[in-house]
């Protein structure tokens, strides 16, 4: 199936574009930077003062004499020049009479897979570079698999360093045949193979005289003329970026047209609300348009007064996007901290931001063999296939239908880093069969009957810090005051509800997720809930706060030093952990992330149990939870 191109609007319209975005992929030493340097050099776009500043090449060979080191022209960061490697994705620009080019130069090292995914996300075409001496390697499969996953369907197989294999046709044919198997396996139908030498300049911009057996185009000629247009136009999509208002009462919706165009007067649907209306005007600075095509940034007004916000999507009502709160997607993990199912992330889906979790990690893809492996988490540069659960239904398309409306990024809720990138494959409709049942007797009614306000007191701290002792003291006092309470204790819950879970990071996240949901149910029943859990990760405590609601949530940090906890060691666990009999023990070989802004910070043993209890009761009074 042809992927809709994200790169150039003309390609999306199915026309020949005068701009081509491409990515170069290769392993270390395949000569990627040299190839790009050569393209820029032969296209005569490298300024003379840059050439003069570049170090001379130390390569031998007739064409290399006195040449600048082409790779050095490309590697932009000081660390890259020093180490002779490419760390980060870089972008280069050149133009010929036929086309304007944007080149993403991406690192070949395995640990920088995320940069390749980044470069491929906007590319119309990928150049897969192979060293003629080494042939097709495991990395070649990896690069091709990532590119295929990211929806790039037009491939150039550039067999480089042909001069070092005597420009032999036989070697070239062998490599082309070996790559054919990879392309078949990955469903890459459009592959053009070109034998070349980036260093010597053979078949890059100038046809080689050294390989008379090759009758095809040079790389540059191919790039100038190749069509990357998709066969079918995709339906109209318009993610709303910005509500445009002015003093005269104008109200329009600004965005970029995706898929097929739209004309004034046409019927549209707004998602997620599902309201229908008609395009009234297509407003631009030059004047109103009769129609807008893919890639145009315009402002729409509607004939009907429909409530629309940033993040909504205006779309074709005949072929409307999918609306669901669960879907399956491929996920490229881009952060040092692993992805854990159940952990709450923010998802930027088009122009919308929603809360999202991975509800189930189906498998990790081994991109060197194509094998699917079971896994409990994703680490940096892993590619996984997973089910996602959003906090509300959102409009989207399958990635192969539309690269912009079928993709998303995941953001860490605490440090705001972009941690993952996803390609949606299909919706999961389970949630649509389950509707939330509203009952007449609600939380407010239940709490009123008890004459109290529900709350969740979340005690966090190391094992042996005194969480349960203090929680017990607080519960006794509340009970004496006639309050209805319930305590969820880490050890106790693990005997029942969470009996199936261990102590890996992934299981800890699921452990907390279940406890958060249980605490919510008890709070919904009108109770004051005391939760006493080590809960070592900030992200899960944030989840608890978000799910419960900040106004009913108190995070209580029972801050006891590791040394003091170890000295107390009430359950003998530290001793076991130190002896290596207990793995993943918080504070020993598993991290504890202290709260940044807890509602209460209790430093023991500075505070006695009684003092700590008093401080918590005071806090509840200030919140109006108790009188």
């Amino acid at each position, binding site marked *: 199936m042809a992927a809709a191109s*994200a790169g*150039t*609007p*003309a390609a999306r319209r199915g026309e020949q*574009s*005068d*701009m081509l975005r491409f990515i170069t992929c290769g392993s270390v030493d395949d000569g990627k930077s040299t190839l790009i340097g050569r393209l820029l050099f032969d296209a005569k776009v490298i*300024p*003379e003062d*840059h050439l003069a500043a570049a170090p001379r090449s130390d390569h031998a060979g007739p064409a290399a004499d006195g040449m600048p080191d082409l790779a050095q022209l490309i*590697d*932009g*960061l*000081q*660390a890259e*020049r020093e180490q002779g490697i490419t*760390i*980060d*994705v*870089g*972008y*280069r*620009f050149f133009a010929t009479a036929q086309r*304007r080019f944007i080149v993403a130069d991406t690192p070949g090292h395995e640990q920088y897979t995320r940069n390749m*995914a*980044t470069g491929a*996300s906007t590319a119309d075409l990928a150049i897969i570079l192979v060293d003629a001496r080494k042939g097709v390697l495991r990395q070649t499969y990896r690069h091709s698999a990532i590119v295929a996953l990211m929806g790039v369907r037009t491939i150039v197989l550039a067999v480089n360093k042909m001069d070092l294999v005597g420009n032999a046709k036989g070697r070239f044919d062998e490599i082309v045949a070996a790559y054919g198997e990879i392309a078949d396996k990955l469903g890459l139908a459009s592959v053009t193979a070109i034998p070349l030498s980036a260093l010597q300049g053979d078949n890059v911009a100038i046809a080689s005289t050294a390989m008379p057996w090759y009758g095809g185009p040079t790389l540059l000629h191919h790039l100038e003329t190749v069509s990357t247009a998709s066969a079918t136009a995709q339906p109209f999509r318009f993610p709303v*970026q*910005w509500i*445009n*208002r*002015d003093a005269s009462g*104008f109200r329009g919706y*600004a*965005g*970029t047209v995706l898929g097929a165009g739209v004309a*004034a007067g046409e019927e549209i649907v707004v998602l997620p609300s599902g309201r229908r209306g008609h395009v009234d005007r297509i*407003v*631009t*600075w*030059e*004047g*109103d*348009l*009769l129609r807008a095509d893919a*890639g*145009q*940034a315009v*402002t729409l007004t509607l004939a009907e007064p429909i409530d629309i916000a*940033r993040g909504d999507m205006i779309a074709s009502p005949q072929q409307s996007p999918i609306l669901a709160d669960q879907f399956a997607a491929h996920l490229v993990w*881009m952060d040092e901290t692993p992805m854990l199912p159940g952990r709450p992330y923010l998802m930027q889906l088009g122009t919308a931001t929603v809360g999202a979790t991975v509800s189930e990690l189906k498998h990790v893809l081994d991109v060197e063999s194509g094998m699917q492996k079971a896994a409990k988490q994703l680490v940096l540069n892993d590619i996984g296939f997973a089910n996602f659960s959003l906090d509300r239904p959102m409009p989207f398309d399958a990635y192969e239908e539309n*690269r*912009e409306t079928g*993709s998303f*990024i995941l*953001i860490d809720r605490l440090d*705001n*880093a*972009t941690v993952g*990138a996803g390609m949606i494959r299909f919706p999961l409709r389970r949630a649509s069969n389950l509707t939330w049942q509203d009952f007449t007797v609600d939380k407010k009614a239940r709490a009123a009957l008890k004459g109290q306000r529900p709350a969740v007191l979340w005690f966090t701290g190391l094992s042996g810090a005194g969480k349960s002792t203090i929680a017990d003291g607080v519960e006794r006092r509340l009970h004496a005051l006639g309050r209805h309470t319930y305590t969820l204790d880490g050890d106790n819950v693990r005997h029942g509800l969470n009996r199936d879970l261990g102590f890996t990071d992934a299981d800890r996240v699921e452990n907390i997720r279940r406890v958060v949901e249980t605490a919510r149910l008890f709070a919904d029943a009108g109770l004051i809930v005391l939760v006493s859990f080590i809960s070592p990760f900030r992200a899960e405590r944030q989840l608890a706060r978000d799910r419960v609601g900040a106004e009913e949530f108190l995070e209580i940090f029972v801050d006891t030093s590791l040394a003091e906890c170890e000295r107390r060691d009430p359950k003998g666990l530290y001793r076991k952990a130190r002896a290596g009999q207990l793995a993943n023990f918080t504070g020993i070989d598993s991290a504890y992330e202290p709260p940044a802004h807890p509602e209460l910070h209790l430093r023991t043993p500075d505070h006695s149990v009684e003092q700590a209890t008093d401080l918590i009761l005071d806090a509840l009074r200030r919140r109006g939870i108790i009188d």
Partner: protein
Amino acid sequence: MPVHRPLDRSYLQQLEAEAIHIFREAAAAFRNPVVLYSIGKDSSVLLHLALKAFHPAKPPFAVLHVDTTWKFREMIAFRDRRLAELGLDLQVHVNRDGLARGIGPLSHGAAVHTDIMKTEALKQALDLRGFDGAIGGARRDEEASRAKERIFSLRSASHRWDPRRQRPELWHNYNGRLAPGESMRVFPLSNWTELDVWTYIEQERIPVVPLYFAAVRPIVERDGLLIMADDERLTLRSGERIEQRRVRFRTLGCYPLTGAIESSADTVPAIIAELTASRTSERQGRAIDHGHGGSMERKKHEGYF
């Protein structure tokens, strides 16, 4: 009256649409965004795109010029005239402390002057006015380290750029989320080249500072650069003399640090023709770029635009 635009240069339309998209994302992402206006051709294009992105409303941004007090006089005159024509409010920031200490390019050299009157001044202005998103006209084709920079480029609370901790940027999905104190630099012209900028200026008939066009100007040759004697602060060293030469500027900055090129290109089409034939880089005339390797990169780490 509905109009149709000719589609002859579709790549320029694509670059324009991408820049407009970026402007709108920036408007939505930040609490207090600002356009950094440096008066040059890229800034002229930037303002033009901002007007287009939010038409018929005014761009929801402040416009800030960090004035080193050493800009060409024609630049300042153009700035005041242009912003008034467009009906945009201009905020001008000068590093008062640096001014009081008498910091200048002639007395302290390019590096110190740029650091204090430009980089420090920019940081002061962002802190003082609480801007959390700063939209600038930098392009990836200008310099090697800029080729590696994101469109939404995160700065720490001390305005530093850390190339090893850049956020991956996929599709057209920009992560604008900030922790308290952090800020974002946003570059809508990231994928434009110098030639694209001029071709767009021609297509859109965008006014630019007349210094870009060739004219006879008073020139001193100093350290291999053709420096214009723009005011009396430029005093001649022994052996130097002012010559009337036909020159133009490819980039504009502080006049004692900005080299002119000998040229007869006095129209936009003539500039485009000259660039098409040219084999030297745009920033070649900028004294500030020519330190040791990684000079621009180091300045960017420190918060330079």
